[in-house]
């Protein structure tokens, strides 16, 4: 195998020899540069492959024919080879990205680029402290040169600021190196590490050395210079600056920490975490894309620095975690910078230009997911292992801060993604070409490949290798096909998966599986209405379903968490497709991620670092930890079920989604939270914290959600929002039922799982059909549609009967079990709330049917047709099911009842024929159905008989009772329909929760706005910041030592 020294020799030799090619043959020179970089990449990749496959051992390369520490030596192990491959490949692609500038400037620019890549590679390999200094200075000088390739004149200022700071770093570094040499008598890193020193001043020397290297990482706040470079340099170079230089700088800190000793690790952790969180906060206020990427880079380097600070507890996972984060960041950031080269505008919303090209959107999504650490990318695995190790070592504050930082980073990255998908696309905002697209896609492929590799490492669960995820990937490949064909494939995939797995499930899982998988297929029938190719819909939808499928399959914490995140990502992209959904999708994503992090922390706490940890071992958690695990997991699951307080994402997300997406995210996705709660309570049971029974707290939250959700629902003008708030209420019921911790409560909750899926999907589809025809969701703009859309009317009618819990439909069965369950439990106070929620629910449901379908037809609607047939098909299936389920609830419930009985060890219900009896009474669905039918027919006949008394009312025959109509809609009776109730209950509507979360957001933004003023643009101030940073850290560190 070729020696890795050749990487240095080829880089340097070519740089030197370019001058021999003559200054006019620029194409030839460029070709030579590319060839050299390709050769350097090839050597790195060959070594990487050989080391990973075990074909080669870690190489120690001696120079000058002498052994270290007397001559400089180099090392190439797996970490080095991986970094070398990253660096050289980034360099190769950077040359392509910078081709126009390099060809214009000729030899000089190419030589500088070659030297830069050579120097970064050297920095990765070298084991000699002073050699580190030489390479760092080479990198600094080459950076100052390449910054000038930018067409932005401000780059000159940025380069100068960079040089000024570089001088300060060099001074600190040299003083540190020489005193380290004095103390150890050696410049070799391994030699210093192996030799104990007692010389006074060694610690201080090491401090100067380390702090200089840390400043190279552009840590907050000593990083104004770096941000200016990111803003003004050519993005092709910024990619190198972030991906290659940044990664190598991290590796150097890692190398030097070994001789410095473990006592420096807390300091690095502190600096890293501060840098990560603060940079992400400041990034919230950025609107220039490259500056934002700069802040993100700085933040990510801080994150890895914090990970380096955890190497004492990470053990063998250290390389896996740090490497996963570094490589993810390098690939994603390089890719984003290369994309930025193609986007003409510099504002974040100028990225809307990429929307026209689906592959670009895929690339953007891939990079953002990699940065945030979502599955299936390496950052996800790294985050998981890191959390396990941190919790096992008791470093919860570090974990909390890191997760906070990730959340903030997700906030601005996904906001940006929302801009790209939803904002108005500028004319000719994209200058795409083969080369730039090519290198961007190389990064995309690298990202997915890394995801595969990180999953395939022994001892890990490869998320990508599961059947549902492979199906998602297949749907990426199917994208060019028409939507209808893809829809058939999607339905087939769901049903196929279900037939494959349903035999293995216990009755409870089976109920969830039926709702999620075939249930999803039924809703997908509605998607046949869509024409065209519907790019992006199917991969997102299938990702969501894959997440749900894997959730049911999960046996370990990790599998569960991975499935949870996949489901979240898929549903985020689905929700984002809605017309006005940009802010709502973002808040959905943030709440989901926040909830997921609560799960992550909860799982880590429960497993205590043991991997893999089976889900059904959750019950073995020690008594002192169990309540905390309970709290964290409940928060995570309740975020998904949108319990009051964590609900503000739901109304917008569900209401603004597309017609066939609303039922998916409402009818199906919410159940994932319930599933989680079931699993948790089944294993953990009742827990109490400070004498408070936590299940009672859950019951209270459920009752409050049920009541307030209903109250909020009655005041909505938008039909889909009304349904969305109603979901909060319904999930509140289910939560309450589960939290009762008795047989009937759980049965009730299971009943809600089925019922809520059916009627909420049905109602969303019905309202969606109306929206398709009327183009409005505001109820007061409709009316009298009963004659034009009779089928839709029927499904709404059946839906609201079922939902309001009046006989004869299954909702009543739910209520019946419910009241029995409450009688069993002793919770009287929340019980009152739950009771009150019933009639309130009736109010909004009444409004739904009354305002839309009854009353007078509006003029613009006279020509309307019935909703598209494919929207009606699933609705009619649901109608048939509801009626059947009402008559024969025993079909599904009896089995579940038996199963739940096996958990609680009791059997409060007696199933005899078609009647069900409990100790408080009995319920005979068939008899009820007959009674209701008789009453209904009698009343109907009486009404028909008296019909001649009815008086037709003209459209504008409305009395205002001396109220002046301020807006046109105030003339409509259905606007502010429940005004009297609003007067009475309006205080309940006060947006306390919204204001709270709004306050959190404003606070963060305010902090960001304040902090960024620190970066005043003056090179001297930046230099002073660096000094301030050094002195501050010095005082802290020395205080720590003393």
């Amino acid at each position, binding site marked *: 195998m070729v*020696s890795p*020294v*050749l990487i*240095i*020799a080829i880089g*340097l*030799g070519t*740089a*030197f*020899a370019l*001058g*021999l090619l003559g*200054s006019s043959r620029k194409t030839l020179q460029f070709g030579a540069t590319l060839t050299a970089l390709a050769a350097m990449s090839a050597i790195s990749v060959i070594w990487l492959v050989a080391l990973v496959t075990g074909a080669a051992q870690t190489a120690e*390369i*001696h*120079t*000058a*024919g*002498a052994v270290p*520490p*007397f*001559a*400089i030596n180099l090392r190439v192990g797996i970490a080095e080879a991986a970094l070398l491959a990253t660096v050289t490949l980034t360099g190769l692609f950077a040359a392509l990205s910078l081709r126009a500038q390099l060809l214009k*400037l000729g030899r*000089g*620019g190419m*030589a*500088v680029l070659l*030297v830069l890549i*050579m120097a970064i590679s050297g920095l990765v390999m070298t084991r*000699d402290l*002073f*050699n580190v200094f*030489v390479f760092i*200075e*080479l990198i600094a*000088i*080459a950076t100052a*040169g390449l910054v*000038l390739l930018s067409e932005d004149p401000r780059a000159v200022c940025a380069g100068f600021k960079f040089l000024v700071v570089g001088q300060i770093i060099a001074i600190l570094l040299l*003083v540190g190196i020489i*005193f380290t040499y*004095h103390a*150890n*008598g*050696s410049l070799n890193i391994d030699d210093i590490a192996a030799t104990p020193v007692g*010389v006074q*001043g060694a610690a*201080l*020397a090491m*401090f*100067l050395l380390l702090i200089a290297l840390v400043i190279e990482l552009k840590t907050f706040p000593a990083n104004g210079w770096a941000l200016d470079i990111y803003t003004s340099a050519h993005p092709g170079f910024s990619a190198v600056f972030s991906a290659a230089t940044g990664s190598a700088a991290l590796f150097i800190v890692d190398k030097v920490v070994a001789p410095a000793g473990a006592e420096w690790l807390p300091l690095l952790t502190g600096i890293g975490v501060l840098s990560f969180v603060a940079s992400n906060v400041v990034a919230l206020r950025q609107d220039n894309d490259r500056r934002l990427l700069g802040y993100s880079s700085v933040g990510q380097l801080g994150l890895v620095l914090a990970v380096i600070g955890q190497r004492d507890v990470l053990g063998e996972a250290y390389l896996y975690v740090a490497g996963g984060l570094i490589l993810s960041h390098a690939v994603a950031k390089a890719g984003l910078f290369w994309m930025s080269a193609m986007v003409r505008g510099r504002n974040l919303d100028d990225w809307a230009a990429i929307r026209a090209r689906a592959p670009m959107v895929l690339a953007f999504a891939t990079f953002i997911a990699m940065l945030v650490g979502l599955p299936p990318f390496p950052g996800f695995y790294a985050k998981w292992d890191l959390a396990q190790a941190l919790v096992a070592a008791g470093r919860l504050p570090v974990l909390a801060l890191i997760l906070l930082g990730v959340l903030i980073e997700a906030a601005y990255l996904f906001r940006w993604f929302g801009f790209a998908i939803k904002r108005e696309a500028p004319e000719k905002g994209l200058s795409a070409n083969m080369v730039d697209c090519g290198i961007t896609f190389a990064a995309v492929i690298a990202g997915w490949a890394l995801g595969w590799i990180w999953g395939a490492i022994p001892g890990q669960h490869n998320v990508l290798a599961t059947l549902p995820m492979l199906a998602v990937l297949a749907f990426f490949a199917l994208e060019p096909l028409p939507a209808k064909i893809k829809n058939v494939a999607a339905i087939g995939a769901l049903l196929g998966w279900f037939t494959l797995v349903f035999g293995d499930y216990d009755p409870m899982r089976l109920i969830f599986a039926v709702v999620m998988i075939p249930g999803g297929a039924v809703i997908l029938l509605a998607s046949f209405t869509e024409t065209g190719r519907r790019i992006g819909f199917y991969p997102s939808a299938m990702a969501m379903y894959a997440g749900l499928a894997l959730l049911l399959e999960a046996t370990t914490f990790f599998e569960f968490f991975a499935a949870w995140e996949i489901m979240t990502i898929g549903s985020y992209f689905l929700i984002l497709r809605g017309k006005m959904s940009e802010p709502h999708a973002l808040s959905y994503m943030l709440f989901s991620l926040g909830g997921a992090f609560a799960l992550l922390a909860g799982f880590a706490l429960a497993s205590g670092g043991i991997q893999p940890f089976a889900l059904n071992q959750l019950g073995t958690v020690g008594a002192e930890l169990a309540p905390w695990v309970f709290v964290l997991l409940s928060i995570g699951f309740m975020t998904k079920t949108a319990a009051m307080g964590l609900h503000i994402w739901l109304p917008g997300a569900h209401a603004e989604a597309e017609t066939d997406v609303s039922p998916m995210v409402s009818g199906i996705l919410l159940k994932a939270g319930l599933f989680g709660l079931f699993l948790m309570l089944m294993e953990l049971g009742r827990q109490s914290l400070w004498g408070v029974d936590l299940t009672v707290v859950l019951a209270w939250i459920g009752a409050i959600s049920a009541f307030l959700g209903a109250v909020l629902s009655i005041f909505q003008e938008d039909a889909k929002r009304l349904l969305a708030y109603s979901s909060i209420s319904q999930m509140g019921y289910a939560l309450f039922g589960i939290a009762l911790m008795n047989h009937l409560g759980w049965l009730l909750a299971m009943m809600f799982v089925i019922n809520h899926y059916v009627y909420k999907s049905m109602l969303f589809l019905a309202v969606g059909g109306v929206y398709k025809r009327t183009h409005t969701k505001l109820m007061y703009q409709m009316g009298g549609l009963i004659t034009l859309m009779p089928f839709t009317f029927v499904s709404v009618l059946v839906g609201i009967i079922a939902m309001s819990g009046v006989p004869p439909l299954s909702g009543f069965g739910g209520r019946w079990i419910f009241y029995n369950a409450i009688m069993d439990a002793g919770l009287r106070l929340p019980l009152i709330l739950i009771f009150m929620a019933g009639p309130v629910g009736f109010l909004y449901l009444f409004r739904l049917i009354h305002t839309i379908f009854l009353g007078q037809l509006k003029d613009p609607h006279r020509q309307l047709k019935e909703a598209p047939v494919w929207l009606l098909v699933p609705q009619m299936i649901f109608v048939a099911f509801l009626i059947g389920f009402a008559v024969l609830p025993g079909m599904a419930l009896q089995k579940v009842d038996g199963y739940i009985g096996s958990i609680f060890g009791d059997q409060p219900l007696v199933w005899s024929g078609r009647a069900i009896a409990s100790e408080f009474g009995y319920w005979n669905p068939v008899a009820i159905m007959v009674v209701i039918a008789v009453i209904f027919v009698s009343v109907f006949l009486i009404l028909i008989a008296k019909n001649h008394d009815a008086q037709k009312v003209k459209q504008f025959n409305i009395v205002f009772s001396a109220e002046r109509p301020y807006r046109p809609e105030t003339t409509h009776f259905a606007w502010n329909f429940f005004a009297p109730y609003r007067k009475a209950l309006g205080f309940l509507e006060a947006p306390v929760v919204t204001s709270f979360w709004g306050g959190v957001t404003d606070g963060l933004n305010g902090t960001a706005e304040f902090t960024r003023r620190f970066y005043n643009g003056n090179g001297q*101030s930046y230099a*002073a910041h660096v*000094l*301030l940073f*050094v*002195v501050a850290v*010095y*005082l802290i560190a020395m205080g720590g030592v003393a």
Partner: protein
Amino acid sequence: MIPKVLISVLLLLLGYAFWTLSVGYAPDTELNRTAAYYAANAESEVGAPNIVTGIIVTWRGLDTLGEVTVLFLTSAIIALVLSQSGGPSGVSGADFLPSGELLTTGARMLVPLIVLFGAYVIMNGHLTPGGGFQGGAILASGVLMALLAEPTRRFGHTAILRIESLSGSFYVLIGLAGMAIAGGFLDNGILPLGQFGTMLSAGAIPLISVLIGLKVGAEFSSILQSLHETEDA
């Protein structure tokens, strides 16, 4: 602007750190293990009486290669910076007053001597204080003198470029040769060590010194020339 007081306070605190270093410093009484190794093996391993040159060219040869590259980079970047900056158009220096006879003649007499001295310093780098860098700098000072004395005179850019490229490439090749036939990259043992203390000894050190000298001289000259061309009349 940052108040000077704040800067002073920061520097005082940094000064305190330095003071701690200074106070805690005790000079070694014995050579440390690295230096002792060099002292003991200078003759047998590199064959250079001037141990510093032995270290620079061989043991820490990679540093030196980097060092040469620093100058290479600097000269390339300065050329880039200045070529882009849209300086005064036309031939710069064209408006200078002609230099006096005395100055021109004096310079023409001195330049060969300076070059000769530079060559001497380079060739004796492994024996006496000196070496490629020092000699290269002396060579460039000859160029500087010529530039100052005759501002209108143009030097062959191409020639300098060729020297720069060739010497650099050869340096790398010699390094690779060390890997192929001796103990590693940049090992000076590709040539026989020869008689200790003579001009043609110490393996490849004199050769490398010459290449470094040429390279450094060429880089400095090209930097000086680039800077010179920015000068307004």
